[in-house]
């Protein structure tokens, strides 16, 4: 009986050791993967910030002004002036009967608007 218990203990120790070893290996693998992912995320962020800087650079007012001047004959873009303000009456809205939002009763509209 006693030697059986001893055997059981030895076996369970070996089993636990094996399990711990397995878990350790898995954790290491997960950590390595996380690191690689963090690296990727960092690089993506760096790329993103470069793209943002590039976007800002390409949209700088000087350049847009020059482009608008260059393509004036095709686009006819002018600086915004007070004469460019229109009245709501001047907008040609579609005829009323053609407007179909698919929402009919007031409650649905209210619900719809309460959503962010």
């Amino acid at each position: 009986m006693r030697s059986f218990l001893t055997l059981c203990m030895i076996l369970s120790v070996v089993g636990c050791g094996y399990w711990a070893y397995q878990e350790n290996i898995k954790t290491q693998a997960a950590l390595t993967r996380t690191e690689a992912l963090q690296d990727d995320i960092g690089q993506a962020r760096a790329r993103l910030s470069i793209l943002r800087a590039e976007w800002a650079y390409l949209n700088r007012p000087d350049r847009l002004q020059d482009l608008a001047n260059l393509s004036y004959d095709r686009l006819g873009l002018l600086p915004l002036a007070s004469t460019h303000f229109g009245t709501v009456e001047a907008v040609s809205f579609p005829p009323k009967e053609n407007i179909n939002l698919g929402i009919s009763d007031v409650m649905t509209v209210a619900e719809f608007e309460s959503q962010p």
Partner: protein
Amino acid sequence: MSDTSLRTPLRPLSRILPARARGENTDQIEKDNIRKRHEQDREMGRATAQSRIILVGLIFVCLYLIIAVRVAALSASEASEPRTYTAGSSIVEQRRDIVDRKGRILATNMNTYSLYVEVPHLVDPVGTAKALADVFPDLDQERLIKDFTGKRKFLWIKKKLSPEQKQAAHDIGDPGLRFGPREMRLYPNGKLAAHVMGGASFGKEGVAAAEVIGVAGVEKTFDQALRDPSLSGKPLQLSLDLSVQAAMEQVLYGGMKLMNAKGAAGVLMDVHTGEVISIVSLPDFDPNQRPHPPVEGHPDDSPLFNRSVQGVYELGSTFKIFAVAQAMDLGLIDPETMIDTKGPIKWGRFRINDFHNYGNQLTASKVIEKSSNIGTARIAQMIGTDRQQEFLRKLGLLDPIEFEMIEASGGKPLLPPKWSDLSTMTISYGHGLSTTPLHLAAGYAAIANGGHKVTPTLIKTSTPTLGPRVMSENTARQSVDMLRRVVTEGTASLGNVEGYAVAGKTGTADKPDPRGKYYKDKVIATFATIFPADEPKYALVVTLDEPTDTTGPEPRRTAGWTAVPVAAEVISRVAPLLGLRPRIESQESAAISQSE
């Protein structure tokens, strides 16, 4: 004896029998043996305890050794980032971005490389020096050869490289050429808002990284906050509007060239919040390549000089409205009070004159409209020195503005050394007191918002922050009406912009020369405006340095001919960008909304 398996019996026959034979008490022998046995047991117990204590001690020593070794190992090892930190922490940039009020980027970072040389690793020092001088024409080849073959072990070649330059340096292929990663500050809009941005440079430099520090403008003011890692990823939002700033710079530049001025400054401010929407000083520079500060000449000849916040000028007649507003607020006059304008006023050797003769009397409103020095001086006499000083101080015109640009502390108003009665009179029409255009804009903003002091700020604020009251609402309203009449009927008729009800005051002041006198042909022309007059939202100050309008038969320098048309053009360009709809009286009702 000590062996327990061979225990001595308590009553050994070998001793008992002889003792009985002698007739002695045998119990004595037993007691004797019991005592001996007890002694033996005690001895053994002691030995066991001793060995146990030693064992426990050893265990403790071992544990402490383990801890000590671990501590030593930890303290001696390189710090490493925790491997399991959660995603989402976004420390990619050491310096936060700066954006405008609509989130458009004004300053950001870019990764680049620096180039340095580890001389002992150079394979071909002379060849490398020649190749480097080919790639970077600004480097001196002789100097490089001397450095590479001399005693130096390490030297920096370039602090920032473009990708092309890096490739070219890489192609030289010498193992002594090394690249260190760098984060550099980038201002994608170039010269736009150059003075506000200021610029950045490298602080402490190492091979692997370098500290980026702000050297001027908001970059310097907010240096610590921009570098604070706890705020990383959250940009610093300014009150500037990129498109308004661009339009204003463009118009002012055109105006400066057209009026042959040597410099121009402009400040556009929200009168309710004090937010500076646009602040311009020309000539300007590119903060990506900030020029070196001048070592000779007048500081305002350098493009680094910020005329809007550093330039203290006598801003001339634009100050008149403060005297009139104060007199109205004190109940001394109302807009229709007749003011004596018979001149000149003689004060010792000093004479106060008007540009034209306006007759013997004018109403207070006309004094502003016609810009009468004599009339304003008379009003200032009614107010008195102490009250004038107190009022100007309340408006913030006598102290440097606490503005978020490091240069603003240099814009300290120049007060007369002794504030005499004469000073009171001259200051009332803007002579003898020098302030920056930003001061003036803040003063006009206080009139425009109904009489609350305005503290200019460059940081976007969402709610109006009303300062302490400096004049009554009624006074402010009447002052705006007077300023409106300056444009509709007075000296600033060129300042009228259809639909925007511009109100404002011109100011032309002779520039002081270094000998303490005034130049005859050099002026500072200023137009300070509020628009729209019926519901003031913005204050604008446009200042031209030494303008001359040469379109007429003889050169004209007064603000009405120089600063005013430029300011009008600024308003007509900028107001639509600010979302201000022109008010056309006849169509006003139809223009509001769609009627059902």
